[in-house]
C-alpha cells in the first residue's frame, strides 16, 4: 500500500485564539497504482493532509492528539520520532501549487538537475534523468535545456517545475492543483502529461478543484470537508451522488451535469456517465431505439 493513514489530526496554532483544526481523525488508504483524487472546498485541509505525506508537516503529538495515529508512506513510518527524511523525500515527489515559483537556476537543465543532485547521483545518471524528465513533460531538450527558466511561458515553467520533481523518480507523485491558473489548453496538456507520467511513476495523488479533471483522470476520489474525509468513491459513483456533491459546495463535472439535466427532462440515460463520448453514445442509443 502506498499510503496508509489512520486517525490523523492536525491543529494549527494550538492553544491560541487562532486555533484551527485542519485535519480531524483522517483515515485514508491509497493503493499502489492508484490515480487518487482529493477534492474538497477551500480550507477543507487538503494541502495540510498532503504535506504530511512527505514529512514537511510532522505528525503532531500533544497530549491525546494523534496518540493512535498511523501514517505510513511507501513503507516508511512517519509517526516515528526521527523518520528517514532523506528516503521519504526520495520516494515521495511533491509538486506544490504554482510550482513555477520554485524555479531558481540559470538554465532549465540545472534546475531539473537540482533534485537528482541532492540525491547524490553520478553526473551521467543526472544527465540521463534530466533528459528523460524533460521528455516526459513534453519539452524538447535541445530547445529548452540551456535557456533560463524565467524566460519561458507560464505553462512551460510549470512543466519544468514538474520535470524537476519527476527527475527524482519518485514512487509516489503528489500534485497540489497542478492545473490552477492555466488556460483550458494548458490544462489539457498538463493532464495528458500526467497520463504519460503515470507509466513511470505508478502511484499519483492529485488535489484538484476541477471536477472535470478528477472525472477524467482518477480511479478513486476522496472528498474532504472540514478536515474530515466525507468518503472515498470511484468517480462514477461519486458523481452519481448529486446531493452529497452539492451539500459540500462542490460542482459536478460538466458532462455529468448535462447528463442529469437530460435525464430529468425525460431522456432515459444513466446520469453518472462521465466521458463526453460515453454520454454521446448513450444519447445516440436512445434515439436509435425510437
Amino acid at each position, binding site marked *: 500500500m502506498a499510503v496508509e493513514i489512520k486517525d490523523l489530526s492536525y491543529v494549527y496554532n494550538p492553544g491560541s485564539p487562532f486555533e484551527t483544526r485542519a485535519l480531524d481523525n483522517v483515515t485514508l488508504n491509497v493503493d499502489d497504482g492508484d490515480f487518487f483524487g482529493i477534492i474538497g472546498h477551500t480550507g477543507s485541509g487538503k494541502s495540510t493532509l498532503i504535506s504530511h505525506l512527505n514529512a514537511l508537516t510532522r505528525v503532531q503529538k500533544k497530549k491525546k492528539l494523534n496518540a493512535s495515529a498511523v501514517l505510513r508512506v511507501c513503507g516508511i513510518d512517519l509517526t516515528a520520532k526521527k523518520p528517514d527524511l532523506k528516503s521519504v523525500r*526520495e520516494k515521495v515527489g511533491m509538486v506544490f501549487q504554482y510550482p513555477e515559483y*520554485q524555479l*531558481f537556476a540559470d538554465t532549465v537543465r540545472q534546475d531539473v538537475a537540482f533534485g537528482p543532485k541532492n540525491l547524490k547521483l553520478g553526473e551521467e545518471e543526472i544527465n540521463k534523468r534530466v533528459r528523460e524528465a524533460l521528455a516526459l513533460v513534453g519539452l524538447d531538450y535541445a530547445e529548452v535545456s540551456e535557456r533560463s527558466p524565467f524566460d519561458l511561458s507560464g505553462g512551460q515553467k510549470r512543466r519544468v517545475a514538474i520535470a524537476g520533481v519527476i527527475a527524482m523518480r519518485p514512487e509516489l507523485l503528489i500534485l497540489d492543483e497542478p492545473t490552477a491558473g492555466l488556460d483550458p489548453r494548458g490544462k489539457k496538456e498538463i493532464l495528458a502529461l500526467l497520463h504519460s507520467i503515470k507509466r513511470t511513476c505508478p502511484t499519483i495523488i492529485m488535489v484538484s478543484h476541477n471536477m472535470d479533471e478528477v472525472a477524467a483522470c482518477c480511479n478513486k476520489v476522496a472528498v474532504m470537508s472540514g478536515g474530515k474525509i466525507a468518503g472515498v468513491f470511484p468517480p462514477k459513483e461519486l458523481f452519481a451522488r448529486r446531493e452529497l456533491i452539492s451539500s459540500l459546495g462542490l460542482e459536478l463535472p460538466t458532462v455529468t451535469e448535462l447528463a442529469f439535466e437530460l435525464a430529468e427532462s425525460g431522456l432515459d440515460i444513466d446520469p453518472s456517465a462521465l466521458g463526453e463520448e460515453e454520454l454521446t453514445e448513450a444519447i445516440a442509443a436512445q434515439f436509435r431505439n425510437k
Partner: protein
Amino acid sequence: MDPRAKLLITIAYIVMLFFVDYFVVYAFIAVLLLVVIFLSKVPLHKVLRSIKAVLFLLIFTFILTIVFNQGQGEEAEIAKFGWYAHWGIFTVCGSGLLLGGKLICRLLLLVLGPTMLTFTTTPVALTDAVEYLLTPLKWVKVPVHAFAMIMSIALSLIPGLMEETTKIMNAQKARGASFDHGNIFKRAAALLPVLIPLFVSSFKRSDDLADAMDSRCYRGAKGRTKMKVLKFRLIDYLAMLLTVALFFFILMLFYNWWGFAWINIILVA
C-alpha cells in the same frame, strides 16, 4: 495616544537612558515602565518575551564587562567591597560588577521601551508619525512622503514575504534540499535556491503593486489628504511634559547643575 507623541517619548527615553548612572534611577524608570505596561493592558509575559531575543547579548556583555574590568585603585576596591579575584588576564572585582549591572539595566530598559511602542502602535500609525516628524526635511527638498510610503509598503509586505519564504523552502526541501546540514558555507549555498525565487517573486510583486498604484492615480504627496488626521490631545501633552521633566531631572543629576549633586549622595547612601 497620538503616535507622534509616543515616538517622541520613546526617542527621549532612549537618549535619557544613556545619561543615567544610578541604580535607583534605573529602578525608578523601571517602575514608570511597569506603570505604562499596566496602563496599556499589554500582557506582561508578552513584553518579557521580547527580552528572550536579546538574552544572549545581555549575558555576554555582562560577563565581558565583569571579566575585563580591572577596577581603579585596587586597594580602595578591596577595602570597599572586600572581594577581589584575579585569574590570568581576567579580573573579577567590585567595580566591574557594578558596571556590568548598570549595563544590563540599561540594555534591558533600552529593549523594553521600544517594545512597548511597537506593541501599542500599528506600523501604519508609526510611519504616519515618522512622516510628520520629518516634515522639516521637506524644506530642503527631501521626499519625505516617498520615504514614508516606502516604509509602510515594506512593512506591509513582510508577512507575505515570510509566507513566501516558507513555501519556497518547503518546495526545495521536497526536492531533497537540506538547510541544516554542513558547514556555514554549505548552508549559505543551500539558501540560494530559496533566495533567487524569492527575489524574482518580490520584483514581480513590486511591479504589480506599482501598476496597481498607478491605475488608482497615485501621484505622490501632492494634494493628498489623510483619512485619519493625527491630533494631539491632552494626554499626549501631559505625557510629553512628564518625559521632559524626567529628562531634565536626569540631566541635572548627570551634569551636577546648580550643585544638585547632593541628591546623588542621598541616592547612593
